[in-house]
């Protein structure tokens, strides 16, 4: 197996609110290899996006924010890197695709120019060469008639086509790592299927490592090799997708999967997790999921650790898999 291209260790992002430092991301550890997709999954406020934003330098470096831990990308220390160096790396070795394809593009510039600009900035090629590479990238993401479409403005594209433009922009500088933050959430389901297929093709063709941030367990099942389930700023379970979905080790993962309304099989009573996820000011002592967990016991008040359990899997549940005996059926 190839070495990881990105290794994140004990990443912690804190934000100061009313004089208190609140851990939005709290001790997150993961790694990604070339050609591999890691899913970061969780509900809103779980810290899945902030953890990626911290790596990219968007969070954690301003006043009222602080970060700690290690993140090494191809042996380079991302967290210690100057903003300037990190800026060079963004959009070059590490590319990003976000949820909102409308707001990530400048409405007043033709899309070809917007893609070419990024290429010129990072590769220092001529204007003409940059445009040629931009059209090539648009072609690669299967935008029909790329040469003509390069001359169009963002509003002349549909949501799905705009997302393709952003993916073209992301891959134009031959990145090694792609961070995709809810890239299909705003799209229709048939367009989502197109974009998921495209991202998987790009990953395989270019040997990209990919971090895929989503709240949708179906999307994780579709495109990710490994998954890290986040709750209240922490990873509570991680492992290979098939194994994790087939046999979740943490009660939160089990509940999250059980809550998904299904398209196939018998129509069952809907299930849910009582209560709502806590904000960083209200994280419980010990296990943060315990207040909503039907399997919580006194032992869950003790501090938790993400324990390796073999097979590349890890579980933060203090009760290990003991809780499973209490699951009916």
């Amino acid at each position, binding site marked *: 197996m190839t070495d990881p291209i990105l290794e994140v260790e004990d990443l912690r992002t804190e934000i100061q609110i009313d004089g208190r430092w609140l851990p939005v991301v709290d001790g997150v550890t993961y790694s990604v290899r070339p050609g591999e997709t890691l899913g970061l999954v969780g509900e809103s406020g779980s810290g899945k996006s902030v953890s990626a934003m911290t790596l990219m330098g968007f969070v954690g470096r301003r006043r009222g924010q602080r970060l700690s831990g290690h993140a090494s990308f191809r042996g380079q220390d991302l967290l210690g890197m100057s903003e300037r160096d990190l800026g060079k790396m963004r959009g070059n070795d590490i590319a990003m695709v976000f949820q909102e394809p409308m707001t990530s593009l400048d409405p007043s510039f033709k899309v070809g120019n917007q893609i070419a600009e990024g290429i010129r900035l990072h590769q220092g090629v001529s204007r003409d060469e940059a445009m040629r590479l931009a059209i090539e990238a648009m072609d690669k993401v299967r935008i029909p008639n790329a040469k003509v479409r390069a001359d169009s403005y963002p509003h002349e594209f549909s*949501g799905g086509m705009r997302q393709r433009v952003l993916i073209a922009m992301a891959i134009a500088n031959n990145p090694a790592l792609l961070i995709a933050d809810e890239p299909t959430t705003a799209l229709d389901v048939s367009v989502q*299927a197109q974009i998921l297929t495209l991202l998987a093709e790009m990953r395989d063709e270019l040997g990209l490592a990919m971090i895929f941030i989503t709240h949708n367990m179906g999307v994780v099942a579709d495109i990710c090799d490994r998954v890290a389930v986040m709750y209240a700023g922490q990873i509570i379970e991680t492992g290979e997708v098939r194994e994790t*979905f087939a046999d979740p080790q943490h009660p939160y993962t089990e509940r999250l999967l059980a809550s998904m*309304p*299904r398209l196939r099989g018998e129509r069952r009573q*809907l299930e849910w997790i009582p209560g709502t996820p806590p904000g960083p000011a209200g994280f419980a002592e010990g296990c943060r999921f315990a207040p909503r967990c039907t399997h919580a016991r006194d032992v869950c008040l003790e501090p938790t650790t993400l324990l390796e359990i073999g097979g590349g899997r890890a579980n933060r549940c203090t009760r290990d898999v003991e809780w499973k005996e209490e699951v009916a059926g």
Partner: protein
Amino acid sequence: MSTVTSPTVLEATGLEVSFPVVRGGHRTTVRAVRGVDLSIAAGETLGIVGESGSGKSTLARAVMRLIPAEGAVELLGTDVSGLSEREFRAHRRKVQMVFQDPYSSLNPSLTVGQSVAEPLKVHTKMSGPERRSRVEEVLDLVGLRAEFADRYPDEFSGGQRQRIAIARAIILEPEILICDEAVSALDVSTQNQVLSLLESLRERLGLSYLFISHDLAVVRHISDHVAVMYLGEVLEQGPVDRIFERPAHPYTQVLLEAVPEPEPELQRSTTKRVLEGEIPDPTNPPPGCPFQSRCPFAMDVCSEPMPVVEIEGGGISRCHLHTSGPRLGGAPLASLDDAVATQEQQETR
């Protein structure tokens, strides 16, 4: 079709909504809803699914008379389509609506109690104390504490706000609740809590729902009947289990295949048919079936008017594949004469 014993609470026939638009400097019209028929029986949920541009939200607004529409709408057996705005007011309270965004649908400067009581002020002559006690009653119905009435919306989570919006929508005891993407902005756990609330209200209050959503799994869960819309038209309609287990229309089939399920084996094993291309320009839809430009089974006949074919197991599909007309293959020879006859009929039409 289903054996409808309960009375029909809502029946729309030939519903049409057109908007004037300017395209490339020319005035033209978009037919956002094109000849839609639908009906909902008492206590039943009709789910409407479709992607952006399908006209599903426009359809809801037309039923609510929030926008002008052509065609007939009957509420509890009364044709309301010809009524003036004043005459319609008495009927308006029978149909209420819950929208997607719980953060913008409540007035932030009003207390929850004031927001929920607003319809009572407009439609009834209740006194202040009467309204207050009715507000507390409906808050209880949606699972919120009475004292929440004195708080402001920004103190509540998305799920609680949606409960407040539902409380306001049911305070006049409507017959029909139109839910337009009502749970789409919520996390799955909260979404399920709200769906379960809607289900229990249906039982307790005998409500009927017109439930509009892009989320097929959610629609499958809550609906009795489902209509699938594309470019302003209903392409398939029928009982929920038949639609999801045996979708007849190619569009429904592809749409269902596109939904990623939390089953890694299934997601990786199936060779998915990915729907290529995009929804056609609504100002210039193709003649006949609106889906033909993306349909893997498109034939010449698809530019003819769409048929309405009854499907075994209930409901209809508007697809020539199900007529005795030309098929891709596998049709019995004996049907050839019929096919030719049908073809001729269509051509003379």
